[in-house]
């Protein structure tokens, strides 16, 4: 089997992969190949038919299909090569890629650089351990979205949604608009896991109850789901006895979190961060394996596609520089560790010289805080778990940063003045 040489192979043709490929091409790399598992480019965006995309990147309010079509068309204009319906099976630390599709059969590519852009997957019922029977009618929110908005099926008429993440809220609205009755959105935490805007426009607009500090404790029905048991939970998230009640439904939608999809990263022995579930990356978006870069939801789950695009561009640009031998190795490596009220931080490794944007996920909502990075402090008005905290470190700020091997990133109450 002939091995084909490619400068940069991008794995995944969604918003991150497209941005990376386009940027690499613009930086002068001719020989690029995007490998996409699905039957079209675009990743998850074609099924996100609601608005709210592009507000920061394009300063326009676009739907998912409109946002991604700009990148698909650009990639096609730039004549970037891609293969659809193509499943990557393995990548090696030497950057050899094995993939398969029905046209080429088994396919081997030797890349100078790889950009990982495989995105993430939804958590499923099996990962939650909800008691009860195993009937039909239990779907993840993204599956329901695909069924409704790509394939044109109505998954159910009487719906309970578990988890108040953004996709769950958006699907609550879609079900209501298509004439289903959404009985409740059930959230185990004391606050919504989705953005305020979605709580207002997806739930309040349609009078859909949001049951905070509640969870589904049991599923009923034999062939098709017939009802769920819902109970209050205590501060530790455990169901409280005698608070159970039954809600009848024919559909249970799960919106209970996303997990970066890194089976392939493991085949290349790439170091993963247990807090994000994605590869450890440095400020170039380069993983622990030299010349393999990563971007988008495969690194950590974003809430705005605009940020995914920017991460893709950064990875694509640096992959191009790597191929052109123009990427200076980081002389100093500062590892950033999550401290108080910080669940994760990306990138995990910075050089401490060039400007860099940090993305933090916080554990709990807080107001009037300071973000501390080693000896630096940056004030923030408000931090919330559903919204990634973005911290821009300028060259000036970095000059003041003590260059230790490890720096803690924390979020604390601002001291009283």
């Amino acid at each position, binding site marked *: 089997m002939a091995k084909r040489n490619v400068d940069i192979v991008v794995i995944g043709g969604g918003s991150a992969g497209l941005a990376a490929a386009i940027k690499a091409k613009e930086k002068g790399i001719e020989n690029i190949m995007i490998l996409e598992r699905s039957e079209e480019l675009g990743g998850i965006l*074609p099924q996100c*038919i*609601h*608005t*709210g995309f592009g507000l920061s990147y394009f300063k326009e*309010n676009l*739907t998912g*299909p*409109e946002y991604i*079509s700009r990148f698909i068309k650009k990639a096609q204009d730039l004549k970037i090569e891609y293969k659809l319906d193509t499943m990557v099976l393995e990548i090696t630390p030497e950057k050899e890629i094995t993939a398969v599709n029905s046209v080429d059969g088994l396919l081997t590519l030797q890349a100078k650089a790889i950009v990982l852009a495989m995105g993430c997957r939804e958590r499923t019922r099996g990962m939650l351990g909800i008691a009860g029977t195993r009937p039909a009618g239990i779907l993840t929110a993204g599956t329901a979205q695909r069924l*409704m*908005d*790509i*394939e*044109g099926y109505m998954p159910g008429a009487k719906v309970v949604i578990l988890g108040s993440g953004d996709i769950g809220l958006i699907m609550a609205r879609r079900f209501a*608009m*298509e*004439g289903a009755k959404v009985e409740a959105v059930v959230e185990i935490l004391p606050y919504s896991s989705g953005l*305020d*805007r979605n*709580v*207002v*426009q997806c739930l*309040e*607009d349609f009078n859909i109850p949001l049951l905070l500090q509640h969870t589904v404790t049991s599923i009923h029905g034999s062939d098709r789901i017939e009802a769920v048991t819902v109970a209050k939970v205590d501060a530790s998230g455990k169901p409280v006895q005698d608070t159970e009640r039954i809600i009848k439904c024919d559909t249970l939608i799960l919106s209970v979190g996303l997990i970066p999809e890194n089976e392939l990263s493991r085949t290349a022995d790439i170091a993963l961060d247990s807090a994000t579930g994605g590869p450890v990356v440095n400020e170039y978006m380069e993983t622990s394996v030299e010349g393999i870069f990563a971007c988008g939801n495969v690194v950590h789950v974003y809430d705005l596609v605009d940020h995914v695009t920017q991460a893709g561009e950064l990875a694509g640009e640096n992959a191009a520089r790597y191929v052109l031998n123009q990427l200076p190795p980081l002389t100093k490596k500062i590892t950033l560790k999550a401290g108080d009220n910080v669940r994760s931080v990306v990138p995990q490794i910075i050089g401490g010289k060039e400007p860099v944007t940090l993305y933090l996920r916080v554990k709990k909502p807080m107001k009037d805080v300071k973000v501390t990075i080693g000896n630096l402090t940056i004030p923030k*008005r*408000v931090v*919330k778990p559903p*919204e990634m905290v973005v911290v821009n470190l300028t060259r000036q700020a970095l000059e003041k940063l003590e260059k230790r091997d490890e720096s803690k990133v924390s979020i604390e109450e601002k001291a009283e003045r």
Partner: protein
Amino acid sequence: MKKREVRVTTCIICPIGCKAKVTIKNGKISKIEEVECPRGEEYVAREIEAPVRDFFATVRIKGASTPVLPVRSTQPIPKDKIMDCALELANVVVDAPVEEGDVIVKNLLSLGVDIIATRDMDRAKER
């Protein structure tokens, strides 16, 4: 008799998410409290007086490789018209091919907005 009512509206302009306290007298806003900025006040006032929403849905499409086409309104529509618009679009069927931006329904329900396609959809290849 004067009617006085206090409503709480969540501002969605920025991540702070102020919970605005709006006092309404005789159907008119008399006071907006607990909002931190002028943009927020503007939003909250509109949200009470004449709330509007982006509108998006799917319509049936024939001859494409998938059976539904995503669409949106060219401008936001009054919030209380969302379900009417959704019902109206339930009866719309278009034929592929369609290009992004094509007008699918002109002046939907006389609201002064058009419904446009949000993606290209080619004719499916004959098998």
